[in-house]
């Protein structure tokens, strides 16, 4: 089966305290040099059938209406091998 | 590698079996062979090894726990005693209340969030399995030193897990405690309690009777959670199409459990269930063997029917899986369709996996091949009983002789003031609201009292205002000094707290947290504590309805303080009459009930000011506790007192500060005749409470105390905006509030 990945991130202008909490913790744990961290979601979809244009369009719609809340989130659809 | 069937086992008696890796002793393995008349199959070996483990069989503690059954006081309110999932007491008006406390200590050290979350999930299912709607949770927690880095790892995770799971279930968190002590550094104690309510006729028991009745497994899918050591059996069938790791940590899904609760309650309402058990430790193997052994003895299960999350699980793994949010019901054939329909309504997976049979064997099949054929009682109830050696430790005398009364005391008002501030701002005595504000205390709309009140209280009938209350208490420091007395002090404190809220104590559940049973000193502590608790319950008339034992809480040679935690359940006729701790009305008179002596062994003062643990804990007088309880309840019911707060760690000053801050009013105190200021403020003598009495009620109240023989000393009045101890010092409420409330957020936020 083919896998399609949808990455969902908060829009850049939205405050992300979870990402900030991670960023604050890194130096304490000994990791320097990270200017910013933003946290998102990754959806791995196992698709039945071919991943053609029609399938991708459907997945795009799925992402826009359900997987992401486009008021506050952006998404990217990627096909994996 | 072929399936290890019963047939195969009887044909290959000399096969090597990993009984040692699974935690069994040689004589236990021999006994299994004797019971079965052959070597056990892999699945049977797994079942016995887990069911006969300390955690499931209580093999080290049984001989001592027997006392709870032997010394049970007469109590008309007891409907279900020790032995079932949880105890049940009658609270009047046809209602029965079930409650229990349990521990989930070791998992919470490994994965704090999930360890605590699944602990809540487990205790809630126990209550549900009794036939009740869960209505409240409580959580007594113990962590290492408050400023230790690892405490900062464990505590926030545990609190988030309890909140994350409990809040999502819709259960108000109405009480508990948070205690810091370095002895718990590597062994945090996460005890979780739950209260459930039902009508008498709804009580369900965990037994499978009636040949032909179906066995239905419902709830979450079964995965590889918690299999742990059992996977050594699977290693023989290892191939690379399987996941390489079996999760050591169980992950809870509170949404799934919420559906399970609603689904189960609807099923109960339609009376579709003959017996029910929740799946906890040892999963399906435990549920089936317990149901079968409590019932008419026989059961047949077809394991391939179980809905799996992971199709690569071997039958042994399915049997031992500890996947959460699952229950097992015994259902008469004519009710099965309706049962499955209700599950479908709630989107809960349900499947018939077997049936109750004639005869007395538990038989489990995998695609038609038999892999288990055992007498269920031998698995569930006839595990080994150890008589572990116990001996009073050599250091006990020296510890008790190290009298805290000899420690340097504050010499004047200024020193007293300074020490009071240190006390109320120390992590153990400071406000825990940073923690308790992470729990929903409002959901279900019946919470009458919650933290930081003396007891949690919920209304259980909206028409009559009948309510129940619960308090949980424990003091490892006292118990270390003297386990017998320490256990009784924990019981007395919880009893006193319930009475202080205006409710009548009925029964208890206990969570016994101790070190390694292989250490005779620890075993002595355990023996003494259980003896103290059993004796105490008998004297107070509050039977032990059930509970939990957690052993092996130690890191290397160092055990935790012996920490018996007691949960007392009480009933109140009218929740409107409950007594809060807040000094809310200026002008009310403050009375100290009970006798104050110089008792500082194990006290908060000795810990905070001198980092000292030594001497004898306060003396216990259970007759006095009973009398005090009666006075507090009468005083509450008849409107003679408007506030009551029990005295425990931190003594009188801690109680007064808490009540003043809660009510937003100060107090002017006068040190009574015959006492010095230091003892008055910091002693931890038991059997005491402070109450606020409206002036109009003073005579009635003091007459009642006098007539009943309870010392009642007027110590001051609710007034002003400071805690003012005449001739000694005054501390403004502002200063006290800041000191009391800044500590925990300062350490953990």
């Amino acid at each position, binding site marked *: 089966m083919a896998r399609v990945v949808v990455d969902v991130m908060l829009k850049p202008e*939205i405050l992300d305290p979870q990402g900030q909490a991670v960023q604050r913790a890194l130096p304490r744990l000994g990791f320097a040099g990270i200017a910013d961290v933003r946290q998102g979601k990754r959806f791995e979809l196992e698709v039945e059938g071919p991943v053609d244009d029609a399938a991708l369009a459907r997945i795009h719609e799925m992402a826009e209406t359900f997987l992401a809340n486009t008021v506050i989130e952006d998404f990217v659809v990627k096909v994996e091998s | 590698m072929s399936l290890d069937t019963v047939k195969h086992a009887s044909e290959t008696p000399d096969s090597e079996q990993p009984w040692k890796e699974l935690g069994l002793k040689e004589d236990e393995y021999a006994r299994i062979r004797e019971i079965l008349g052959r070597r056990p199959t892999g699945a049977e070996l797994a079942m016995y090894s887990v069911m006969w483990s300390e955690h499931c069989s209580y093999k080290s503690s049984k001989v001592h726990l027997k006392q709870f059954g032997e010394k049970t006081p007469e109590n008309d309110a007891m409907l279900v005693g020790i032995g079932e999932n949880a105890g049940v007491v009658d609270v009047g008006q046809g209602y029965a209340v079930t409650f229990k406390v349990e521990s989930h200590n070791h998992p919470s050290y490994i994965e704090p969030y999930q360890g605590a979350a699944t602990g809540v999930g487990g205790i809630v299912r126990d209550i549900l399995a009794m036939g009740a709607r869960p209505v409240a949770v409580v959580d007594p927690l113990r962590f290492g030193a408050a400023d230790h880095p690892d405490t900062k790892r464990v505590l926030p995770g545990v609190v988030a897990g309890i909140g994350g799971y409990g809040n999502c279930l*819709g259960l108000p968190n109405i009480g508990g405690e948070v205690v810091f002590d370095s002895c718990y550094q590597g062994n945090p104690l996460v005890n979780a309690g739950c209260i459930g309510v039902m009508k008498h006729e709804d009580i369900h028991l965990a037994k499978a009777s009636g040949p032909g009745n179906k066995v239905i497994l419902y709830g979450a899918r079964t995965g590889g959670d918690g299999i742990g050591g059992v996977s050594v059996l699977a290693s023989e069938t290892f191939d690379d199409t399987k996941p390489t790791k079996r999760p050591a940590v169980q992950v809870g899904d509170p949404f799934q459990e919420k559906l399970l609760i609603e689904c189960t309650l609807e099923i109960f309402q339609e009376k579709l269930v003959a017996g029910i058990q929740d799946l906890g430790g040892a999963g399906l193997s435990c549920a089936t063997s317990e149901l079968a052994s409590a019932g008419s003895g026989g059961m047949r299960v077809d394991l391939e029917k179980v809905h799996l999350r992971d199709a690569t699980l071997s039958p042994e793994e399915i049997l031992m899986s500890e996947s959460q949010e699952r229950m097992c019901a015994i259902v008469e054939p004519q009710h099965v369709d309706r049962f499955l329909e209700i599950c479908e309504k709630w*989107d809960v997976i349900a499947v018939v996996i077997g049936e109750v049979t004639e005869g007395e064997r538990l038989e489990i099949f995998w695609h038609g091949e038999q892999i288990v054929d055992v007498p269920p009682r031998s698995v569930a109830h006839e595990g080994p009983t150890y008589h572990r050696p116990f001996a009073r430790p050599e250091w006990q005398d020296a510890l008790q002789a190290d009298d805290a009364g000899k420690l340097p005391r504050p010499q004047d008002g200024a020193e007293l003031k300074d020490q009071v501030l240190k006390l109320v701002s120390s992590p153990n005595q400071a406000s825990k609201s940073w923690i308790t504000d992470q729990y929903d205390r409002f959901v279900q709309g019946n919470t009458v009292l919650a933290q930081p009140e003396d007891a949690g209280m919920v209304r259980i009938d909206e028409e009559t205002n009948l309510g129940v209350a619960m308090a949980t208490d424990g003091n490892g420091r006292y118990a270390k000094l003297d386990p017998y007395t320490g256990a009784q002090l924990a019981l007395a404190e919880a009893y006193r707290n319930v009475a202080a809220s205006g409710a009548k104590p009925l029964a208890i559940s206990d969570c016994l947290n101790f070190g390694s049973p292989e250490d005779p000193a620890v075993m002595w502590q355990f023996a003494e504590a259980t003896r103290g608790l059993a004796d105490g319950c008998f004297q107070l008339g509050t039977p032990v309805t059930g509970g939990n034992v957690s052993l092996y809480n130690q890191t290397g040679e160092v055990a935790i303080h012996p920490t018996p935690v007691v949960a007392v359940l009480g009933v109140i006729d009218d929740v409107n009459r409950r007594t809060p701790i807040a000094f809310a009305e200026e002008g009310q008179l403050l009375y100290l009930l009970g006798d104050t002596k110089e008792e500082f062994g194990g006290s908060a003062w000795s810990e905070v000011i001198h980092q000292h643990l030594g001497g004898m804990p306060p003396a216990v007088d259970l007759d006095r506790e009973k009398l005090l309880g009666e006075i507090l309840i009468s005083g509450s019911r008849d409107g003679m007192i408007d506030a009551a707060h029990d005295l425990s760690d931190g003594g009188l000053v801690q109680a007064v500060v808490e009540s003043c801050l809660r009510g937003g009013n100060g107090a002017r105190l006068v040190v009574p005749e015959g006492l010095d200021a230091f003892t008055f403020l910091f002693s931890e003598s038991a059997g005491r409470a402070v109450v606020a009495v409206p002036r109009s009620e003073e005579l009635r109240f003091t007459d009642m105390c006098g007539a009943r023989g309870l010392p009642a000393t007027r110590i001051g009045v609710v007034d002003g905006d400071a805690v003012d101890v005449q001739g000694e010092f005054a501390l403004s409420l502002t200063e006290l509030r800041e000191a009391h409330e800044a500590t925990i957020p300062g350490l953990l936020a």
Partner: protein
Amino acid sequence: MTARIGVVTFPGTLDDQDALRAARLAGAEPVSLWHRDKDLKQVDAVVLAGGFSYGDYLRAGAISRFSPVMETIIEQAKAGMPVLGICNGFQILTEAHLLPGAMLRNNHLHFICRDQKLRVENAETAWTSDYSAGQEIEVPLKNMDGRYVADERTLDELEAEGRVAFRYLDVNPNGSLRDIAGITNAAGNVVGLMPHPEHAVEPLIGTGKTDGLGFFTSILKKLVNA
């Protein structure tokens, strides 16, 4: 003569019983609605109650918003039926685009349960007419994902049109922009707020005040006098 107030139960809804009780105490007839039914049983108004519907999985309210019952509710709300969304209900209303904006994790990343002071900003809506503009009330608040956000244009619009219904006072418990605790749609029939008025309807329980009862008496008056 009274009005029927429907309260929806989704899988994972927790405060439906409290909302039903509040409706009853106000004198209305409480009606339970199941998420799978499109039929609203002739109720005159709907309350989307608090809780963790679908465990808050994906996003709070994201899955509930597609339930059969929501299809009818969205339709009827657009036609003027009063709808009150409390906490998770508010989240469902924003996911359903009946109200603008969205709810995110509390800025301090903890669940918070506290007695919360609010100022009533808009006392003209179907659910707030029994209050007066500027009135201070105290109502329990309890949530993990209560931070209200919207873009600047939307926020300015809400302010300009007087559609901020409630604002947090003293303490902003979750980082909501402009201290917004609740909002209304332009027509004033759809109101959403994070705090829980249904937990403040009895003197014995919750905050010890009955400041939340006004929501339920307001709607009753509106419906009965309609």
